[in-house]
């Protein structure tokens, strides 16, 4: 599987990382180096092997379904690049 510039651009878009047009060939080449390395995995017979979901077998704990936190609006917003009137502020989302 080889990645061309169009695929590289598509991946950058999916990852929401702006990549300039002129940087795409190098990015595609790097992807291909890494993918070539990864493709060694195709040598392994994985027939009938379950994909690992949890490295230590354990049941996830459940907690009581009750409110145990909250009323921290100031603390939640204190690190926001832009907050107004108790909300996170972002550029216009809807036309």
């Amino acid at each position, binding site marked *: 599987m080889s990645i061309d510039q169009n695929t590289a651009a598509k991946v950058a878009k999916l990852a929401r*990382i702006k990549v300039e047009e002129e940087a795409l060939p190098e*990015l595609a080449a790097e992807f291909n180096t890494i993918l070539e390395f990864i493709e060694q995995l195709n040598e392994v017979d994985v027939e009938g*092997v379950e994909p690992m979901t949890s490295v230590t077998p354990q049941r996830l704990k459940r907690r009581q379904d009750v409110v145990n936190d909250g009323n921290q609006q100031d603390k939640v917003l204190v690190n926001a690049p832009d907050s107004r009137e108790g909300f996170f502020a*972002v550029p216009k989302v809807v036309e």
Partner: protein
Amino acid sequence: MSDLNKLGLAEARDALRKGETSSVELTQACLGAIDKADALNAFVHKTPEIALERAAAADARLKQGEAPAMCGLPVGIKDLFCTKGVASQAASKILDGFVPEYESTVSQQLADNGAVMLGKLNMDEFAMGSSNETSTYGNAVSPWRRGNDDTPLTPGGSSGGSAAAVAADLCLAATGTDTGGSIRQPAAFTGTVGIKPTYGRCSRWGVVAFASSLDQAGPMTKSVRDAAIMLEAMSGHDPKDSTSADLAVPNFEAMLTGDIRGKKIGIPKEYHMDGMPAEIEKLWSEGTAMLKAAGAEIVDISLPHTKYALPAYYVIAPAEASSNLARYDGVRYGNRALLEAGDGITEMYEKTRAAGFGDEVKRRVMVGTYVLSAGFYDAYYNRARRVRSLIKQDFENVFAAGIDAILTPATPSAAFGLGEMSDADPVAMYLLDVFTVTVNLAGLPGIALPAGLDSQGLPLGLQLIGRPWEEGDLLNTAYALEQSTGFVAKPGEWW
């Protein structure tokens, strides 16, 4: 007492108990050493006021008696741990200015035990790197040099600042985190001890997430005994991390008897890599002989899927990273890129992430995005998770056959010069983790300890891998090996 910063945790603890020194004196010695060591770029956010305040509180607590083992001992905290009121930015530009309103469970436990935080330590950006060269703070520099050659060397990564600080006696010990070798590889490069415990032993809450199924915190120290003391303080169940294990934490230090008679030590044939330096092979066989001389039984073993650990890791870790790092979007915390008139929210995301992430982080996020994308999920991600199951099975098979611990080299080479790998392709850097990454994939405990010097005078480390949840037994085997190697070398102070 002089040179208090050069003490280890156990020695300093005992000196405090005997009233030979105070936490304030220990802390001042470390703060003095830190201020003289800016050339190492290990401490990137210094917190002397917090340190002296906690030291005074620790001294008061010690006077009352019954203080925990870590009480009054000055340590450094890797920048990946969120620390309340103190900048915590995972060495990334995208978190410039981020000051958490909360404290990670591990650093809170250390504080509750009375440990004194000296400041935050350099690392690779989001813990992605093996040389501490991807940090927004610039490179951390190893205190070690090749003889009289003044080429700056890497302290390893990603916990490079932690390793440099401990090796240079800027602190008594430090926290690290390990996703593919980020505690053990820098420990090996700097002649220090580092243990990655079993997955789930330490809470991940408040530790900036890289690859959640692999990340574990652990101590980086000057001796195996110190590692036992600090690991105990860092460990334990945390309701805020659903993957943290609800298991009792043993007194690891009490398990250090040095008696390993009858223990079965496995030597995996797959770890004899083509092109591995003869010095590493020699170190490994010497370590094997030492364990045998200490009464252990040496057994040749096979871990047949070893070769596929790194490729599996470089699917799974980027996949998890692409998901974890989606939160850095310029909305809730950190930096937002300057926008132009007419830019909407998508441009804001794309520009913020392009400006805030470094090249290696971008590369891994995009590789992760690719392997998770429609049409490739099965071919890459699910296949890698299947291979991961096989890698874990390899270990389960040898443990079922009675193996107590596995001895391997910690790294395929000694530390290299900063910048020496910059022209290599990304995969060449990834290969540095070849001996450590299997342990993360299988969720096992692994410890690196110094075992000798190479011909250029640089430290080389060995790794011991243990059974899940048996860190105490693993530490004891490491303790026996430490006594046999008698490693005491320290870097000459040039900084």
